[in-house]
């Protein structure tokens, strides 16, 4: 039974990868008109990606999904709003502050700020700027998950939050330094990592299932969306303050 699923999943993962391979090969050979460098490496790499994707999906169903849902149910039974919100905040903050994509983007932003004369152009100022940026993004994600969980419990419609967030982004953009805007907009997209997403999704859906009167389809989703919106506002605000 388990073996069958593994083979089936392997095949599915391979299908997921076919489009990328096709794009890369077609462009390399037909458009750019050059041979593929190092075919053996390409094949080994592809086998790794397929294997990795397969293990990830199997592990997802074995651990991350059930774990997120089990915790949501446990918190719902416990009935302590304070601890649930603390957990939501910690989950958002803790997963984001160590996120490699965010570290990369924060360093980049610090370099730009140094060049643009927003901060002193020495390494110490840049390091502290990058760290400040990372912490403000992590705070914003923690805050977003907290508010998102509160929304599921209270049953507020999701679009109030999203429209509010959009208005915040639009209002703050004209006042933010021009150099920071692109990075701020991008930082919204990179904060949600491969492990956070399944966990947070399962938490939201689990809560919406456990609480009476909530529909998991309508109320369960939306945590990720809000968590990719608030960093834009926080990063621009950070750029304005410093």
């Amino acid at each position, binding site marked *: 039974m388990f073996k069958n699923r593994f083979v089936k999943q392997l095949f599915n993962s391979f299908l*997921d990868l076919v*489009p*990328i391979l*096709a*794009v*890369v090969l077609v462009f*390399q050979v037909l458009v750019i008109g050059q041979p593929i460098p190092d075919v053996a490496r*390409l094949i*080994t790499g*592809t086998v*790794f*990606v397929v*294997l*990795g*994707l397969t*293990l990830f*999906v199997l*592990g*997802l169903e*074995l*651990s*991350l999904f059930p774990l997120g849902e*089990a915790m949501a149910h*446990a*918190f719902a039974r416990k009935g*302590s709003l304070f601890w649930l919100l603390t*957990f939501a905040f910690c*989950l958002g903050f*803790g997963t984001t*502050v*160590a*996120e490699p*994509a965010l570290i990369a983007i924060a360093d980049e932003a610090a370099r730009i700020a140094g060049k643009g004369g927003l901060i002193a152009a020495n390494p110490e100022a840049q390091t502290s700027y990058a760290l400040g940026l990372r912490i403000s993004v992590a705070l914003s994600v923690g805050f977003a998950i907290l508010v998102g969980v509160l929304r599921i419990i209270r049953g507020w419609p*999701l679009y109030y939050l*999203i429209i509010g967030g*959009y208005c915040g*982004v*639009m209002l703050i*953009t004209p006042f933010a330094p*021009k150099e920071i805007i*692109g990075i701020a*907009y*991008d930082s*919204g*997209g*990179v904060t949600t990592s*491969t*492990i956070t*997403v*399944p*966990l947070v*999704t399962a938490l939201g859906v689990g809560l919406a299932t456990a609480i009476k009167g909530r529909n998991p*389809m*309508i109320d*369960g*989703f*939306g945590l*990720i*969306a809000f968590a*990719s919106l608030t960093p834009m506002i926080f990063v621009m605000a950070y750029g304005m303050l410093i």
Partner: protein
Amino acid sequence: MTAWLIHFATALLGTCRDILPIAAIIIGFQLLVIRKPLAQPKKTLTGFIFVLLGIAFFLEGLEMALFPLGKLMAAQLTTPAFLGWQAGQSAPPWQAYGWVYVFAASIGFATTLAEPSLLAVALKAQQISGGSIHAWGLRIAVSLGVAFGIALGAFRIITGTELYYFIIVGYIIVLIQTLFSPKMIIGLAYDSGGVTTSTVTVPLVTALGLGLAETVPGRNPLVDGFGLIAFASLFPIIAVLGYAQIAQWLGQRSRKP
């Protein structure tokens, strides 16, 4: 072989470090607040190890095969020689970059289809909706959105238009669509915007953006090179909402005699 093993071990360690805070938070709350043992500790641990190994293999494979090639191609497609003009000449009009748009759209589409985060959300959505939302259909809709978004983002870098005009217009479209969409899909649509851009898409798309901003005259890579990711997280929302609206409209029409 040993060099490779060391390299793989480093990748695995890196992944472990990334999930350490998550594991600490979960275990901490489980022990101190919930104060109940995990229902199936063995199964959970196995699954966790699968996820860890999976991500390490996935990243390692991408580094070996796809990233070098993709980045090289993004660089090659944006060189003046490939675009067919000399460095001294004045900038060619935006139409001259045809292959860049095609490449941007196809790489956006293909990488999104392989994005593990999107896969996770799509699986969950299929599970809860009882199959009325197909994981595969959702992923195609999201990928089409990303393809369009990245191509438009490339156009923006080439023409040098302000980023936030596009973003604000996109937001307004999303707001209008939200008013007319079936309630059930809204949360999922918003979420699919956030999950499209992670492990696979970000490095390739960033390489394309920075390459373009370096080659096109008058663009500053620091200011214009960013912003593609923002496009890639906005347009899937429009695509998924649109998909739901079309499905609803078709359903209504077929019910009428």
